[in-house]
């Protein structure tokens, strides 16, 4: 992989949440990921897999304590974000890397008008007056399909979908190089989901923004992304081009995810599920994290941690059994 092409490069990131009550919760373990310029990567995994923690680490927004980056490096344009001081990271936040948060209902400050909240990020990063920032904020609102007459209204006067659009408008206001979208559509109903995705797709094309899309909706990934990374218990278990993974999933967990999708073809009344639960992050097994739930596991799986194996070009999987043909 060409280093210069990467806008963001995460190397061996480990994040722990340390509390007196539960001990050390290993949320992210040896996580590595490269994002190229203009590329859209989907980060998929179940609740608690560490997806949001990764995104927050990129912006140094982890709440510390209890969160702590134990090891690793996050290179943004060749500089390690984790080593930056507060004023350096503040210049990047919102301007170069911005984030769309999970829950639009709580992501907006209830006491500021939406226009002011969008203008805030513009005023912080662009050398403009407050009045000009408000004008640019009005444009940003129009861009996401909200009439600018509503910019002096407060979040409580907006519906959930519109709030999410305000959040998106805020995130895109400074035309960031990299957008971290943390489940941008989870809180929305399906019709608004489609609108929001269309909107993000359009903006991505127009601004050539890189995208890290965190979701547990494989349909959204198929729609939006070039590559997809499947995350389980704080580590990537499979990563590759969307087509390759959707056609030929290799890791038993990825297969389980696809099998759990409702299908038009099968006649079964119940959805398939992956038996068991994710391992307790305070007490992770030293071997393959998926071994306890894996239906294909062999004796070697309980002994050591699997390394990444490349099964086809750019398609890597962390499984001892990778590449074997299954029945």
């Amino acid at each position, binding site marked *: 992989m060409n280093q210069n092409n990467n806008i963001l490069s995460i190397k061996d990131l480990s994040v722990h949440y340390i509390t007196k009550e539960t001990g050390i919760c290993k949320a992210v373990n040896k996580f590595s990921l490269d994002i190229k310029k203009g590329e859209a990567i989907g980060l998929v995994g179940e609740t608690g897999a560490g997806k949001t923690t990764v995104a927050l680490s990129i912006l140094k*927004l982890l709440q510390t304590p209890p969160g702590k980056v134990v090891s690793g490096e996050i290179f943004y344009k060749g500089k390690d974000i984790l080593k930056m001081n507060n004023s350096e990271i503040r210049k990047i936040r*919102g301007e170069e890397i911005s984030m769309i*948060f999970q829950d639009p209902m709580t992501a907006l400050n209830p006491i500021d008008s939406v226009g002011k909240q969008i203008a805030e990020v513009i005023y912080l990063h662009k050398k403009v007056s407050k009045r000009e920032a408000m004008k640019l904020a009005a444009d940003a609102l129009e861009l996401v399909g909200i009439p600018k007459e509503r910019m002096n209204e*407060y979040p*409580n006067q907006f519906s959930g979908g519109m709030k999410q659009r305000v*959040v998106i408008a*805020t995130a895109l206001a400074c035309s960031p190089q990299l957008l971290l979208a943390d489940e941008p559509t989870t809180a929305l109903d399906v019709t608004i989901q489609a609108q929001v995705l269309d909107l993000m797709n359009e903006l991505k094309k127009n601004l050539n923004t890189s995208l890290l899309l965190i979701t547990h909706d494989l349909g959204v990934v198929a729609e939006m992304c070039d590559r997809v990374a499947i995350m389980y218990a704080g580590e990537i278990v499979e990563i590759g081009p969307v087509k390759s993974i959707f056609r030929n999933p290799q890791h038993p967990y990825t297969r389980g995810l696809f099998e759990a999708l409702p299908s038009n073809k099968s006649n079964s009344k119940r959805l398939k599920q992956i038996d068991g639960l994710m391992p307790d992050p305070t007490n992770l097994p030293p071997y393959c994290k998926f071994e306890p739930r894996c239906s294909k596991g062999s004796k070697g799986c309980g002994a050591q941690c699997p390394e990444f194996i490349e099964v086809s070009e750019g398609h890597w999987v962390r499984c001892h059994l990778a590449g074997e043909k299954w029945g």
Partner: protein
Amino acid sequence: MLRYTIKRIIMMIPVLLGVTIILFFIQALTPGNPADVALGQDAAEADKAAWISEHGLDDPIVVQYGKYMYKIITKGDFGTSYTNGKPITGELISHWPTTIKLALMSLLMACIIGILLGILAAMKRNTWIDSIARVFSILGVSMPNFWFAMLLIMLFSLKLKWLPVSGSYGPMYWILPIATLGILNAAGIMRFTRAAMLDNSQQDFVRTARAKGQSERMVIWHHILGNAMIPITTCIGQYLIGALAGAIIIEQIFSLPGLGSLMMTAINQRDYPLLRGSVLLVAVSTSVIFLLIDLSYAAIDPRVKARFKSITKSGKLSKKQVQKN
């Protein structure tokens, strides 16, 4: 907003009527004859009876009440004091500013100390600063104000001789009374501020603000404190009422000529008109304070403002508001 304010002011009238009625009934149930106090125990029964009928106290209580209210409504006359024969209105006007001054000044002090310390404690959570602030808050909340006043007098007046013990002869005489109430109320306001700051600093919109690249100072002062001010305002309102009541007690200790000393005199002398007047004034002040708190909510929280507007427009919550709530 204006319509809401007017509506609230009109709604005060039944409350104050209620206060006058309760006062009259308590007066009727109170043992002791005001004539005994006014003329002395040894005065002739005939003189006492004459005094009673002169002041209209032999009328049925309902008639007394009717006459009292009639005078207030038609002439704005609250009657005259039994003890010195002066009009009540004048007495109240001369004593009320002392109490209000003490209450407001001490509250101002409490807000400044309480809010700043609360922010500091919340931002330095689980450090020694936080621990000290919490000990201060527990001490302040649990200490009776008159006892704290005594302690301050012992230290600053008797031991160090920096400040006068009591009286009202200049600014120096105000320091201890204001400090007594100010420091104690600061403890309560600090507790509230700390809790509200911690609560709001966990909110998602604070993370959003940081993600925008906002400075930590603005995150704390605008985003967190701005939202924390909503519960803090409630708390301040409660303390303002408390400060008014506290001022009445503290005035006694420091011999300040306020409503408190006026009320004590009225109670001891069975001076019913004076007592009624002072209690009524406290009731009016309290109602006005409640109104001011509710109005300041609208200034802080746009959601409340929207609700006020919809209340006054339709007389009740509009459909849109009901759905949202």
